[in-house]
């Protein structure tokens, strides 16, 4: 088992390095000239050229990448004296548009995305798995049909539609709350929760649908397995059988998929954040695209990718933990 952990971690690290390199090179290969983005309206070719040299964009790509990586570990200074700016480690770049170290931008947006993701995740798992189990146990009866209908609707509706609808219903037609405005958790937990409740519900409806189906099918399939019948033959009650045998087996693949879904969400629930005006990673990324703010783009892409790589490794560990048959394989 130890070998497995070490091996997997090494692979994750290697993968992260590869992803960072690939991302960096990809953005460098874009036709947009990064130097040209660094100055505002009063840009003359001389200024651009000067900036290019100052910021090191004239150096070969590998060297640029090297500098970038060094910045992550040791901090980096951008631009020459006397107008140089220093960003502490881990420095993911400097945004000229916003005049800020990218790392600071991300550090500010991340808690928002995390808040959104965790809340939505818990809600959709409970909703999805709960409904899925009910649907499976009452197969072909009305709870099943209702749950299936719900899941079909949920999968079909685009996130922004559900989000906008939620805003419309709960802040305009039936105004039980104000338009959500994000507040930090530590500042005011109640306001934090009430601001996030609509986005949570939106994401939950959209994502739970997949899990309703997955859980339903998984439970139905597992219920037909021989070992469940044997459990029954041993004299186990139906409730114990469902929880201890069926769910235990059916949830293993579902939990692992969920882990990956969660990681993807962490990378930025772009649409939801836009609809609800939450200043998270997703919104940051979109703004960076609109503004052509390359350093921010590179950094947000990298952070998203990092989440997925780490989640993959964690999911692999969990799978080995959950399913003993996989451990020796």
């Amino acid at each position, binding site marked *: 088992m130890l*070998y497995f952990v*070490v*091996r997997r971690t*090494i692979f994750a690290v290697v993968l992260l390095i590869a992803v960072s390199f690939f991302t960096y090179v990809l953005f460098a290969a874009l036709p947009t000239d990064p130097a040209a983005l660094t100055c505002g309206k009063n840009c003359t070719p001389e200024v651009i050229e000067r900036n290019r040299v100052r910021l090191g964009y004239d150096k070969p790509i590998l060297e640029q990448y090297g500098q970038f990586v060094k910045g992550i570990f040791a901090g980096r200074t951008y631009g020459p004296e006397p107008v140089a700016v220093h960003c502490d480690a881990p420095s993911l770049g400097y945004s000229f548009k916003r005049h800020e170290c990218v790392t600071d931008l991300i550090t500010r947006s991340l808690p928002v995305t995390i808040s959104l993701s965790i809340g939505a995740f818990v809600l959709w798992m409970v909703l999805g798995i709960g409904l899925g189990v009910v649907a499976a146990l009452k197969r072909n009866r009305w709870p099943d049909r209702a749950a299936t209908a719900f899941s079909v609707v949920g999968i079909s509706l685009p996130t922004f539609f559900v989000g906008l609808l939620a805003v419309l219903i709960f802040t305009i037609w039936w105004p039980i709350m104000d338009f959500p405005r994000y507040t930090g958790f530590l500042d005011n937990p109640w306001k934090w929760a009430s601001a996030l409740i609509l986005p949570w519900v939106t994401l939950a409806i959209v994502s739970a649908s997949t899990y309703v189906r997955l859980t339903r099918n998984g439970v139905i399939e597992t219920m037909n397995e021989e070992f469940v019948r044997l459990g029954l033959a041993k004299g186990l009650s139906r409730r114990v059988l469902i929880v201890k045998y069926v769910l235990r087996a059916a949830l293993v693949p579902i939990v692992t998929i969920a882990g990956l879904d969660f990681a993807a969400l962490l990378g930025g629930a772009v649409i939801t954040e836009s609809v609800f005006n939450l200043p998270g990673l997703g919104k940051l990324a979109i703004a960076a695209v609109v503004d052509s703010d390359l350093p921010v783009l590179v950094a947000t892409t990298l952070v998203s990718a990092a989440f997925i790589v780490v989640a993959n490794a964690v999911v692999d560990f969990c799978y080995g933990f959950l399913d003993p048959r996989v451990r020796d394989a």
Partner: protein
Amino acid sequence: MSAPVLQATNLVKYFPTGKSPLLHRPTAEVKAVDGVSFTLERGSTLGIVGESGCGKSTLGRLLGRLIEPSSGTVVLDGHDLTAAGNPELRRLRPQIQYVFQDPYSCLNPRHSIAESIATPMRVQKLYGRAEERQHVRDLMERVGLNPEHINRFPHEFSGGQRQRIGIARALALQPKVIVADEPVSALDVSVQAQILNLLEGLQASLGLSYVFIAHDLGVVRHIADQVAVMYLGRIVEIGSPGAVYGNTSHPYTQALLSAVPVADPRGKGTRQRQVLVGDVPSPINPPSGCRFRTRCPQAQERCALEEPQLADRGGGHPVACHFPLA
């Protein structure tokens, strides 16, 4: 005497397995087939028996080069199948066809049986549409199916009938050899007899040669002209059914035979049942010397040191044992 239709010489198949700690390189090999040789005469049946893990199914797949041997040769009707390049292989393949065990998974449920049976002919681009259809009908009749059902789908047939469809498909290219891997194991007893009768009839009328792989000793005894008993990748005894069953030389064969429950209660209590102790050793690390020695009731020192080769030791048929029973 005509040349044998199929000849296997020193067939070996090792599968890499295991994972080294960091890089997951294979650390060991499963020695599935470890030096098997035999000769199949034209128009006869070779039965291969053994329990799970003995390598008989792998051997079956090697004969038609469905998997590549690690070493060894297969000569089909005088042509070296193992060394054949792709064009020649394409020419040779029709001469050796297969029938498999599970009649439910062997047929594509979305293809009508006309398509299933015709597919080999189409792959080899043999006939035009009309001619092909006629051939399919003929084949169906030959295997005892009603040609009117030509457009039906597999799920509309019983297990026994589906096996007949599989046999029809195997006959489509007029092969010389058919390798049948447990063709009746998945069928009910009353249907098994029908299929076995069919196979025997086809052999007589078409001059087919069979390699018949099974774990059921009774079935093999009935249908085979020669029986080979396999254990852990090697043949331990080979001979006519009378010799192998009546004049058993190898202790494993004897244990196998004595383990088969006899459908006659009068024999109860009087029969010397020899129950083998323990499990089959892993094919990754077979025991040194004779592979059977860890479970053999009469194993001696020599058995651990020297691996017995397959040879006639006086019993009239080849056996791989230092101290054969007969």
